[in-house]
């Protein structure tokens, strides 16, 4: 690791102030991505600003059909919550037990790793991302590979998820890293069907063609004839080609639907 100055502010104002003053600062939430990156000298921030000392950023609050999850809430806490079972299931499948004891919702979505699990919940569960500056609709939050709508210095404080009538998450884990090769979250809210996909493209997205097919007939067999999944912009790596990822999107969507109906 290169040397850096470590800070643990106790308020958001202090944190953003430290960031503004830093030559090249970075926020630290759970550190599950940042610390390995620092260890391998792939980043050299001048200042690391740990958000763990700030009160009020952690916890799960249910308000009607909205579940608000604090940005510093650890995955393990979400996994143990019964507010949205599919979200708990998703959180319980991130990384491993140790990662879930440290990693946070805010850290995960601010990083926008293409293979992370949480982003698919943000795009699928009609989410609103609260930050130190504003609120951002979940559908606008992810902008590309490791890119989000966040401005420099802006901190995610919480995410509001809308409780669906029913939802299910299906994940095809990378055999090495256990990140998602493909993850599909299907949610039914009244007549609306949402199908979110992670792992397949540079960032999480909604698969509208699948949604349309399922609106017409919400059953696994609705996808039997194969909905065309355009994989021209899909990721490809050692573990799965774009074509195989597209195939998995179809299979996992059917399985998620089957769990709901």
């Amino acid at each position, binding site marked *: 690791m290169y040397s850096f100055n470590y800070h643990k502010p106790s308020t958001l104002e202090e944190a953003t102030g430290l960031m503004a003053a830093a030559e090249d600062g970075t926020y630290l939430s759970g550190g599950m991505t940042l610390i390995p990156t620092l260890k391998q000298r792939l980043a050299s921030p001048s200042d690391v600003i*740990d958000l763990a000392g700030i009160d009020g950023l952690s916890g799960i609050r249910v308000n009607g059909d909205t579940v608000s999850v604090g940005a510093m809430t650890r995955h393990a806490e979400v996994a143990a919550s019964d507010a949205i079972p599919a979200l708990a299931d998703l959180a319980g499948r991130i990384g491993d037990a140790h990662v879930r004891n440290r990693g946070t919702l805010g850290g995960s979505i601010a990083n926008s790793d293409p293979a992370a699990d949480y982003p698919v919940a943000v795009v699928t569960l009609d989410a609103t991302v609260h930050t130190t500056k504003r609120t951002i609709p979940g559908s606008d939050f992810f902008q590309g590979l490791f890119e989000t709508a966040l401005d420099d210095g802006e901190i995610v404080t919480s995410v509001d998820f809308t409780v669906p009538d029913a939802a299910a998450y299906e994940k095809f884990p990378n055999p090495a890293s256990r990140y998602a090769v493909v993850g599909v979250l299907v949610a039914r809210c009244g007549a609306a069907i949402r199908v979110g996909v992670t792992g397949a493209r540079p960032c999480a997205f909604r698969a509208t063609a699948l949604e349309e097919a399922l609106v017409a007939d919400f059953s696994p067999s609705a996808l039997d004839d194969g909905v065309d999944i355009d994989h021209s912009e899909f990721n490809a790596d050692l573990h799965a080609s774009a074509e195989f990822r597209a195939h998995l999107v179809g299979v996992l969507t059917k399985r998620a639907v089957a769990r709901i109906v």
Partner: protein
Amino acid sequence: MEVTMTVNGTAHSLGVPDNALLVDVLRERLGLTGTHVGCDTSQCGACVVHMDGAAVKACTVLAGQADGTEVTTIEGIGTPDALHPMQAAFRENHALQCGFCTPGMIMSAIDLVQRSDRLDERTVRAGLEGNLCRCTGYHNIVKAVLAAQESMQEGA
């Protein structure tokens, strides 16, 4: 910077570099070399310790993040004369060979049993996904965790 932590029941106040990792503090400052480092991508789990009661990978925690916490390492759970039930089960079931992954595996397994109602073979295997062992094929580790579950829950 100055960090304060209680390790295996003993309070320590240490001056460390801002970029120090918890695992380096344990191994190099406190001489607790039972916590091992087997990778650089937070996968292998040889460095697992308990921090405020939760299992964490000490190679992926900055010393500053551990400030004010209570840390338990493999050295803090039992001695050769008074083994923790998980340690005893590992020995009894031959759940270790070279011993390098063992401290992290035992710390993970204790955490797994403590936060689970009732484990079976499948849930033990799933629960150990954050720890790599290259020697045992996990067969005897799974046996040991299931055996320790019995003695830990009896003792509880």
